[in-house]
């Protein structure tokens, strides 16, 4: 198993554009979480999806949305991009929903630069 995979690895967008980031969890994992990591800070929680339903949402504006597909892969969408959205976006998967009882396995991230 290649572990959690994310695509693309990096991309450049301009302000106001829309972006879609993709994540494939480890085989058998049903939970996918998204985190934003701004340079010099720790990852900040954006969403958790479990069994294709949103189970948790962090303090992010409605421009951020996500979904999980029947094969448990996930997409993170960000509309009306702002300069401040420039960050590394991490996806993490686990078998169950509960972050405290399950090890979360992280992907390599997608580095987004907004100009």
């Amino acid at each position, binding site marked *: 198993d290649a*572990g*959690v995979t994310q695509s693309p690895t990096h991309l450049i967008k301009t302000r106001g554009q829309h972006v879609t980031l993709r994540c494939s969890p480890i085989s058998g994992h049903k939970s996918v*979480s998204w*985190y934003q990591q701004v340079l*010099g*800070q*720790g*990852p*900040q*929680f954006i969403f*958790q999806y*479990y069994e294709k339903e949103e*189970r*948790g949402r*962090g303090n992010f504006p409605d421009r951020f949305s996500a979904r999980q597909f029947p094969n448990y892969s996930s997409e993170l969408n960000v509309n009306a991009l702002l300069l401040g959205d420039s960050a590394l976006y*991490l996806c993490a998967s686990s078998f169950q*929903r*509960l*972050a*405290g*009882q399950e*090890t*979360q*396995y*992280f*992907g*390599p*991230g997608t580095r987004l630069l907004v100009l």
Partner: protein
Amino acid sequence: AQRVTQPEKLLSVFKGAPVELKCNYSYSGSPELFWYVQYSRQRLQLLLRHISRESIKGFTADLNKGETSFHLKKPFAQEEDSAMYYCALSDDYKLSFGAGTTVTVRA
């Protein structure tokens, strides 16, 4: 609201010296705490969790509820320990991370 604080952004130690990374937290319930590590050019990975009470790669961490701390320690640092370390607290479905400490172990 839960919060994780890592007061040291950078930590430099000599090989063979002890290393301690500080982590303090604020949380109203019973916390579940973790240390994650990111080696150069690798992805973020779990180092240890307090509930396991185990030693991984020579590292240990003790939860001190009175001081609301979960410091990471290793008695003899190795060059391969050079990495970015994040303390994290779990709240049911999400992890809350500290800002991280970059550790450099010098020969």
